[in-house]
């Protein structure tokens, strides 16, 4: 097991990574003509780090991760994983990494322990079955068929398959998509425990809370490009304001305009969502909100809703792209 060691080479390094899907080829987003899925991506992930790739569906997260995992041939660029590359060291690399793809459907009529024993058989030094089951809290389900497991249990089994040989780097592609909050927290616990043992994690997500909780650094992807890279705190600080004021007018109350809202005290960013909710990034909401109320009273407009919260990575994404992350 490796430990965090700043002098060592990075766990993962990629330079100028590109993927172009040619017309009529490749599954998933099939369109006429070539589709540029990933456009010149540079990333460096240190050992022991948890790195998040953030972006909406179609931003190129999965394509990027599958190229890094050696499952998809890049159109161009270089990938170095644990100091090795896919062309020469595939079998050694596979021994030392763990992968949970986005939505793998494991064999439905195999039991949990049969699935784990199958994956254990592929590695030179698999961990004991009992330890794996304990790690993902599936001891009681060891003889249950996969098809009988809940979504969260299946995802924990998928992660156990990735942890079979105590990998040095763990790739998780949308590990908690579609799970209930409790299952999500259990998965976060698994990732935290793995990191505590010194592991490196690369995960993709479109849940901002997940990235903020788990990741040391995040890269925000949009349409195959890296648009921001940094710690969650740095990215939020980049908004220029740590608070967000959200408001919605009652129906038939007329409209507000961006310039007026931007002129309110300490407001740095203004965004109107498709549902008619205005989001104002404000450095001092205790000054912005009274000014807003005074403005609305003067214009005779009534609020349906008004709230203040801390800024999140979601707001960073909206501010960078003008679109919400989950606008599918």
């Amino acid at each position: 097991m490796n430990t965090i060691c700043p002098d060592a080479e990075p766990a993962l390094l990629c330079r100028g990574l590109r993927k172009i899907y040619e017309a009529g080829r490749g599954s998933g987003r099939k369109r006429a003509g070539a589709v540029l899925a990933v456009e010149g991506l540079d990333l460096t992930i240190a050992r022991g780090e948890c790195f998040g790739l953030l972006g909406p569906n179609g931003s190129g997260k999965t394509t990027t991760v599958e190229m890094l995992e050696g499952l998809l041939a890049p159109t161009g660029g270089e990938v170095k994983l644990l100091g090795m590359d896919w062309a020469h060291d595939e079998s050694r690399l596979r021994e030392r990494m763990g992968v949970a793809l986005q939505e793998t459907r494991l064999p439905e009529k195999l039991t949990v322990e049969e699935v784990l024993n199958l994956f254990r058989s592929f590695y030179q030094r698999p961990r004991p079955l009992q330890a794996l089951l304990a790690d993902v809290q599936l001891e009681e389900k060891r003889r249950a068929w996969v098809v009988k497991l809940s979504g969260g249990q299946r995802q924990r089994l998928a992660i156990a398959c990735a942890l079979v040989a105590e990998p040095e780097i763990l790739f998780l592609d949308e590990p908690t998509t579609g799970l209930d909050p409790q299952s999500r927290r259990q998965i976060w616990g698994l990732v935290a425990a793995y990191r505590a043992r010194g592991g490196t994690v690369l995960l993709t997500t479109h849940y901002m809370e997940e990235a903020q909780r788990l990741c040391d650094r995040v890269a925000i992807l949009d349409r195959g490009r890296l648009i921001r890279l940094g710690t969650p705190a740095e990215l939020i600080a980049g908004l220029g304001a740590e608070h967000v004021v959200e408001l919605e007018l009652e129906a038939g109350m007329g409209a507000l305009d961006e310039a007026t809202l931007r002129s309110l005290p300490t407001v740095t960013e203004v965004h109107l969502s498709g549902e008619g909710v205005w989001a104002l990034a404000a450095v001092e909401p205790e000054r912005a909100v009274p000014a807003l109320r005074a403005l609305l009273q003067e214009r005779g407009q009534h609020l349906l809703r008004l709230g203040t919260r801390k800024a999140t990575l979601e707001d960073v994404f909206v501010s960078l792209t003008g679109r919400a992350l989950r606008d599918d």
Partner: protein
Amino acid sequence: MTEPQRPHPVVQLTLMRLREMMREPGALFWTFGFPVLLSVALGIAFRVKGPEPVVVGALPGVTVQARDALASGGVQVRPLDEAAAKAALRSGQVAVVLVPPARPGEPFTYGFDPARPEARLARATVDAILQKAAGRQDRLAVRDQEVSEPGSRYIDFLIPGLLAMNLMSGSMWGIGWVIVEMRVRKLLKRLLAAPMRRRHLLFAFGLSRLMVIPFEIALILIFARLVFGVQVAGSYAALVLVSLAGSASFAAIAILVASRAQNTQTVSGLMNLVMLPMFVLSGVFFSSTHFPEVTRPFISALPLTAMCDGMRAVMIDGAGLAGTLPYLAVLAAWGVVSFVLGLRWFRWG
């Protein structure tokens, strides 16, 4: 430390396939139940009932003497009027209609459809009886010897064909469909993300088929033996060899068919496209010699034809290992070509 309990990947992958099959009632039925049901149904439909009696229709005016002569010759005579006679002839209830002479001295008329073999046979039988009754003398002394060669019944012909068909379906569905299903579920990709060797997976597919094939063959053979008395005239070793070569050949064809299919609908369509023409052409249910002479070389080159003919050579004609070589060569050619192309085009993701 955990080394002693580390299972071999081929064993684990084979177990995965066998467990999935055994835990899927549908798969069990198609592998074991369906061929038995099919042989029961066809065995009953085509069971040997002894010689069919000849049935003729007699229009009003056929003399009692003629009717008695036919009846004593084993022919069933049905008095019919003209309209009823036409209908009976059309539906095959009578093979020949006997029309009496309009005036004394004019000839009898036999109404029958010469395109139907049983009608020609009935006409000859009826004519012989009537001529004899009218005083014809046979010039040549003849004697009949009734023979019943084992293996000459329809069920004897059918069982080798069913065996071949079942092994073909087993390989195609058990490998082709399963590969595509694993691709759709992203399980192929997930396995490749682990340090699994591709050849281990292919080897496990073959091995899991190999474990099931003996049961498939034994079930059909034992059933056919007990219920219909079907025998294997030739060597069991040759039968096993043809079965294995045929299964391997169709396993390779399955890999080729599944190499690029991205969903299970595509692969079932492709497999039916491969298998259905062979169900008809290759002589599973009736001899492929009914097809025109020019098509014969093409039909003989089909893998299912080779397997059916090889099975029949062993079970009916008593062929040994040497007698199956031409069939094995055809199967090997299909297998090797399909395997090479299948691996070249194969898409894991």
